[in-house]
């Protein structure tokens, strides 16, 4: 058995223990998955407070559904399906309320400049980095919700076509098409950054 398969089986095993009333196993699942869920949601909705609230809702739903859990799919697929569903619903509901400042607002620590070795970035480097980050965020934000979810899962969570397809409840060929169109759009918007 590969390490990845063992890791995934461990998730299912933990969730089955949660189903049987083991609270410690829920804490372990939270420890393993809270970071990717928060990161995914923060990029999906681009609003720190909302992404945190939605991430809480994801884990609350997992906990509430523990009694009926059956390991028919990967735990992470289930988790990201809930997260995607919540994010897409939120984006749909807030479509008309969204304002430019949500993009310009710098989340606490989000997009913090990557420091190279022990050299602090210069003012110019920091400005350039922030400008690039804003471009990327705008480009992602301009994508339709489903394309956005597919790109984020593919790029930042290293999910394959099959898992993205199961998460978005569509075929693998549909995922390939979503990703192709999404990356084409991103290319057009980010070409000047090269």
């Amino acid at each position, binding site marked *: 058995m590969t390490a990845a398969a063992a890791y995934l089986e461990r998730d299912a095993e933990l969730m089955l223990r949660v189903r049987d009333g083991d609270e410690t196993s829920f804490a372990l699942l939270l420890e393993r998955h809270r970071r990717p869920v928060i990161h995914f949601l*923060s990029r999906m909705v681009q609003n720190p407070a909302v992404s945190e609230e939605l991430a809480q809702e994801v884990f609350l739903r997992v906990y509430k559904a523990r009694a009926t859990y059956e390991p028919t799919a990967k735990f992470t697929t289930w988790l990201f399906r809930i997260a995607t569903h919540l994010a897409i619903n939120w984006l749909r509901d807030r479509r008309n309320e969204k304002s430019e400042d949500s993009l310009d607002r710098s989340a*606490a620590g*989000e997009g913090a400049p990557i420091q190279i070795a022990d050299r602090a970035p210069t003012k110019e480097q920091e400005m350039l980095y922030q400008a690039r980050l804003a*471009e990327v965020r705008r480009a992602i934000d301009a994508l339709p919700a489903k394309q956005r979810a597919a790109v984020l899962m593919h790029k930042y969570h290293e999910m394959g076509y099959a898992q993205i397809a199961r998460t978005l409840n569509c075929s693998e060929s549909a995922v390939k098409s979503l*990703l*192709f169109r999404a990356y084409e759009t991103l*290319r057009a918007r980010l070409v000047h950054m*090269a």
Partner: protein
Amino acid sequence: MDCPAHDSGKSGIFVSYAAGTLSGVELEALERHLEVCAECRREAAAQREVWAALDVWTPAPVPPDFDSRLYERIAAEGSRRWWHFALRPEFSFRFRAAAPVAAACLTLLVALLLRAPQAPRPAALPPAAAVSTAPVKIDADQVERSLDDIEMLKQMGFAADGSDSPS
């Protein structure tokens, strides 16, 4: 291999190439093709640039109180679970059909309890009249004193019927 740039069915290969998820055979075939096809080299380079550009977006840190707030919400859900569950629409819908059956069972239970054989009651208390029929001890001296009093009153001019007119 056929030129991916001119084959819509293979257009996603550059995405996989940039992501580094091409299998060994596919990767070798594409790299051989890239050596001879300038158009595909441009496509592959553009895709890699997009991929690299997206790396700039580092994620937000996890809020330090995330877990504690979650557990608070879980506890709050647990404390209101029973009545919330009863008020949920799906609960109402699920048990709406069972309501008449439950009512019928309750009625039957009450009827059975009312008709059940009762334990013998304790003996009834004797009526007040029966108590009064008990033998009373008569004090003869008391009677004699009473009669003497009546006689004395008569002698003093008071009628025995209570009239206050002198005889």
